[in-house]
C-alpha cells in the first residue's frame, strides 16, 4: 500500500473503532480484515459495489485486487465513512478482536 492508501485505511478505521485504530499498523493483514468486514456486512450496497466476487477461497484481497481497484475501494470507504459506519457496526464489534490480534502481530 502506498502512503495515500494507508491514510485512507487509517481514517476509515479510526472513525469505526476510535483512536485505538490509530495505533494499528496499516498493513496487508489489516487491509484484508477491513475488506472482509465490508464483504461480511453485506448491508451497505454502495460498499458492496467495490467488493469483486467471486474471490478464490483463502486469497489475500490485498494481492487479489488490482491496485486501481484497491485505491477506489479505500477512497470510497474513507469518503463515505460516516454513512457506512451505521451499517457495518455490528460486524465491526464482532471482528474487533481480529484487528487487535493483527495489530499485535498474531
Amino acid at each position, binding site marked *: 500500500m502506498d502512503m495515500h492508501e494507508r491514510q485512507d485505511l487509517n481514517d476509515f478505521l479510526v*472513525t*469505526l*473503532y*476510535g483512536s*485505538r485504530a490509530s*495505533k494499528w499498523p496499516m498493513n496487508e493483514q489489516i487491509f484484508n480484515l477491513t475488506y472482509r468486514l465490508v464483504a461480511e456486512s453485506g448491508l451497505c450496497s454502495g460498499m458492496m459495489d467495490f467488493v469483486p466476487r467471486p474471490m478464490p477461497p483463502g486469497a489475500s484481497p490485498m494481492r487479489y485486487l488490482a491496485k486501481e481497484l484497491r485505491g477506489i475501494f479505500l477512497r470510497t470507504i474513507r469518503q463515505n465513512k460516516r454513512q457506512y*459506519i*451505521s451499517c457495518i*457496526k*455490528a*460486524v*465491526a*464489534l*464482532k471482528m*474487533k*478482536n*481480529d484487528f*487487535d*490480534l493483527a*495489530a*499485535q502481530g*498474531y
Partner: protein
Amino acid sequence: MENIFKFITISLLLIITSNSFADSLILSAKLKIEYQTPQSIAHGTDNLIVKYKDWSFMHVLVDPKELYQQIDLTGLEKDYIRAIFDVQARSKLPKWLAITAEEQADVFGVTPQSTHGFMLDKAEVLAVYDAKDKKGQIFILEELAVHQIYINGEIQHYHKVTHSIKER
C-alpha cells in the same frame, strides 16, 4: 539405564504438570478466570490477549462510549447487552436501539441453542458461540463493570473459558 529411565520419567512429569498448570487472571474484586499456561500474553491498548497455538481469548472492559463509535450507551450498557441475548429485554429499549440489538444478535449468531447464561454471585454471564465463524463472545455484567471476552477457536475452548470464570 536406570538414569535414562529417571530422566524420561522426570521429563514426562514436567511436561504434564506444565501443560495442566492453571494461572489466574483477576477480573475484579470478586471474579477471576483460570486459564492454562499460554504460548504468549499480549497487552494491547485496552485489552489482554491470551494466545495458544491454535486459539486465543481476549479480555476487554467494555467502555459504553466505545462499543459503537456513534452511540453513547452510558447508563444503558447492561440493558443493551441483555437485549442482544433476550427478545423480552429488547422490547424495553427505544425502537432504534432495539433494532441495533437485534442486528448485533444476528451477527453474533444468537439463537436459543447457541447461547447460555448463568449467575456468579451478583454477576450475570451471557455467552454465545457462532459455530460458523468459530467465535465466542462472553459478557460479564458486574455491578461496577462490564467485561467482554472474545474467543477465537473451536467450541471446546469457548466452553473451557466460560467454565473457568469463577468467584475469587
